[in-house]
């Protein structure tokens, strides 16, 4: 059935909103080369932010038309369909439909399509064309299509869809000039695209559309697209920041669904298959498939090894080893460099300022606080380099595939692997990576356990404790590495264990179903990887410059006031300060773990960020720790005694402290991001309680059992 003309009007010429350059939205399936195109169009002119209320990144860039006129491009998260299944797809849907108050509906849409897989990619294009906005279709990966022996005819596609179609190879920058020219056009025709909505569904579409116009203040064209979407949006992922449906429209929708359910009609399936019928006809005209007997492709040959039940594990293990070895060895040089420069900056301030509180605030508060965090930048960059590399080559999906079997044992699926891997660098990007997990309970479980993966901020604590634990320089390196490995293993094991526990108790659910595309292998886009690293570095440095700077200054104040009388040693000053009082107050709770009030100060201050523990110990035990060597601080720690003369940092206490840091939720930034992601305080508080509770119990067990056994 053809829709009546008032619902599907003839395509009018549409001029761009006068007076300002049009805003483009960039949409496409995952793995179709969308971010490569976005980077090619906008270069370094990108701003990364967040959509309020969700941890989905909002990327906005500026591209230039052929005449140098700036054009805004919003890069929307990759989506297979506008019927969203995960928060990132929901953001794409809501921005395109103009449902978000924080992002105006884009004027024009760039739809990027993988030419090697036209049929499935056209599904999203088909939905986007319904939106009644001018669309430019970018036919990417034309080179790969040609390699596969396929013939693709862009002109034919342009004719069928009634919109400009630009063939392109984004990786090589081919077709960008033509694309810029098309984007610069003052007017773009609307699609003449019409497809037959199945007769049984058409009246419902018309009624919901009318109600959306009357009750939800939608324009008729958007209303049509939205009504089609409402019928296929099964569990309608709602994310914060999207406007809800009016009660009247919701009622009409529910009425139709009820009626169809009673009749036993599968309306959603019917709509999908009628779209595919229309797409199939287009694809048959546009693509000539390649010759069939090509033999296994290079991707097939690689997959034969990396998805193999045995060799797959071997290759995943090798990749993981390579990543960890690189993080620990390569990062050392830039870390020493940063450390040295921070120390000389501090010395320079000391030399050029008169002694006093302001100087101490700058050196002991700001420089050592921020410096202590910035020093992890190289490690984080290396990890993101590898993650970017794995993603851009297509291996990441294989790793998730291999891990799926293991993850299914604890009730999660392979998609949770990527967030957990990122959490080895830092839980924050890890938690942000959970946005691609479709099942809400799975996502929550992944968020809850992600901070148990030993992040790079725990590393300095482990290093200091290992130095105190095995002070002898002649102890083989293997022992130290072994203890370190044990801590990483413990955290990982606990993450899986708690995931298992939560999936069986708090967040019980059906085993989630997973469908995941394994994209063909590609040479890594080093420019894209570099841009992503740059972006991460910037986000990290901005955080260090704001939140961590603030916390460092507050901590400095708490340990510097109230002032001790003249002539007091730094440790006497600390004991009487606000921080010292807090340490003394905490002592009864941590004494059974073998920790005294001085360690207590470290535990309290490192609640802001774990690595602060090391600098706090430096202040508490009055040792110069900021020359990049743990030796002087280690000596100071070994001299530390209880009031009754017992050694404070016994091997048991050191071991207990490490275990405490494996489990305890000592990171304000993570708590903040979990609060934002879960829309409330309930889950971050629960997470803090269960993690720190476990940490306390295990450290207690280590100390008490160890003492009883006579260690």
């Amino acid at each position, binding site marked *: 059935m053809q829709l009546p003309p008032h619902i599907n009007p003839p395509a009018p010429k549409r001029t761009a909103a006068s007076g300002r350059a049009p805003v483009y939205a960039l949409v496409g399936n995952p793995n179709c080369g969308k971010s490569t195109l976005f980077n090619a169009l906008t270069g370094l002119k990108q701003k990364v932010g967040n959509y309020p209320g969700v941890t989905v990144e909002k990327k906005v860039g500026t591209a230039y038309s052929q005449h140098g006129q700036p054009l805004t491009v919003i890069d929307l998260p990759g989506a297979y369909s506008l019927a969203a299944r995960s928060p990132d797809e929901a953001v794409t849907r809501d921005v395109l439909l103009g449902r978000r108050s924080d992002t105006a509906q884009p004027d024009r849409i760039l739809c990027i399509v993988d030419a090697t897989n036209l049929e499935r990619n056209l599904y999203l294009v088909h939905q986007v064309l319904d939106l009644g906005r001018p669309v430019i279709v970018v036919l990417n990966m034309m080179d790969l299509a040609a390699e596969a022996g396929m013939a693709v005819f862009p002109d034919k596609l342009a004719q069928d869809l009634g919109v400009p179609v630009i063939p392109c190879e984004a990786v090589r920058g081919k077709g960008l000039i033509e694309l810029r020219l098309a984007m610069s056009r003052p007017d773009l025709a609307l699609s003449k695209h019409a497809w037959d909505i199945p007769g049984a569904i058409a009246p419902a579409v018309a009624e919901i559309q009318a109600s959306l116009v009357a009750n939800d203040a939608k324009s008729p064209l958007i209303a049509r697209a939205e009504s089609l979407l409402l019928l296929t949006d*099964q569990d309608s992922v709602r994310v914060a920041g999207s406007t809800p449906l009016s009660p009247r429209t919701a009622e009409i929708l529910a009425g139709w669904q009820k009626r169809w359910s009673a009749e036993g009609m599968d309306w959603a399936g019917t709509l999908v298959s009628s779209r595919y019928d229309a797409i199939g006809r287009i694809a048959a005209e546009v693509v000539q498939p390649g010759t069939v007997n090509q033999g296994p492709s290079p991707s097939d040959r690689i997959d034969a090894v990396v998805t193999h039940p045995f060799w797959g594990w071997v290759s995943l293990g090798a990749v993981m080893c390579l990543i960890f070895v690189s993080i620990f060895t390569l990062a050392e040089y830039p870390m020493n460099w940063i450390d040295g420069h921070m120390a000389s900056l501090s010395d320079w301030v000391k030399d050029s300022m008169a002694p006093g509180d302001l100087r101490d605030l700058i050196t002991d508060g700001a420089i050592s606080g921020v410096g202590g965090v910035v020093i992890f930048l190289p490690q984080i960059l290396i990890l993101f380099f590898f993650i970017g590399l794995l993603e851009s080559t297509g291996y990441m999906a294989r790793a998730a595939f291999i891990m799926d079997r293991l993850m299914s044992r604890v009730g999660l699926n392979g998609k949770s692997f990527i967030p957990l891997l990122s959490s080895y660098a830092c839980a924050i990007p890890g938690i942000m990576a959970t946005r691609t997990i479709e099942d809400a309970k799975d996502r929550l479980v992944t968020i809850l356990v992600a901070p148990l993966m030993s992040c790079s901020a725990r590393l300095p604590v482990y290093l200091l404790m290992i130095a105190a634990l095995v002070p002898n320089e002649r102890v083989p390196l293997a022992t130290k590495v072994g203890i370190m490995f044990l801590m990483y293993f413990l955290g990982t094991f606990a993450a899986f264990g708690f995931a298992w526990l939560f999936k069986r108790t708090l967040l019980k659910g059906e085993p989630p179903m997973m469908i995941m595309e394994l994209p063909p292998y590609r040479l890594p886009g080093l420019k894209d990887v570099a841009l992503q690293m740059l972006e991460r570095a910037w986000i990290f440095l901005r955080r260090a410059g704001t939140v961590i700077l603030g916390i460092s200054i507050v901590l400095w104040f708490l340990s510097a006031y109230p002032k001790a009388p003249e002539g007091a040693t730094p440790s006497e000053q600390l004991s009487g300060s606000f921080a010292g009082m807090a340490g003394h107050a905490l002592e009864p709770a941590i004494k059974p773990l073998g920790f005294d009030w001085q360690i207590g100060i470290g535990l309290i201050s490192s609640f802001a960020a774990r690595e602060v523990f090391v600098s706090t110990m430096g202040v508490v035990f009055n040792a110069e720790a900021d020359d990049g060597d743990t030796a002087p601080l280690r000596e100071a720690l070994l001299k530390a005694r209880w009031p009754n003369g017992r050694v404070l940092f016994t091997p048991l206490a050191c071991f207990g402290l490490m275990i405490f840091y494996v489990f305890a939720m000592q990171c304000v930034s993570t708590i903040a991001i979990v609060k934002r992601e879960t829309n409330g305080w309930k889950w971050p508080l629960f997470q803090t309680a269960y993690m720190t509770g476990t940490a306390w119990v295990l450290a207690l067990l280590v100390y008490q059992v160890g003492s009883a056994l006579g260690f």
Partner: protein
Amino acid sequence: MSSSSPIARLPLCQLPAGAVGRVQAITGDEGFCQRLREMGFGEAALITKISGTTTSLCQVNGTRIALNHSAAMNILVERLPVAPHSAETRRA
């Protein structure tokens, strides 16, 4: 590719590696069924199983797709006779 034998449905996870199947029915969560159809995995789609019983790896329409066990159990396929020199058969 018509098969003269009576249609025997089996879940995708039980389809042997290298075999070709046609999707007969998909069951389970409606939202998930919809996504399968949207990704071209709907009824009548031709699937080549590449490997796996716990986690299945398949080739559909030129795309390689992984499905976990609970998803593959919900996809019922009819096994089709494989053409003797099918390009997509590997690792039998």
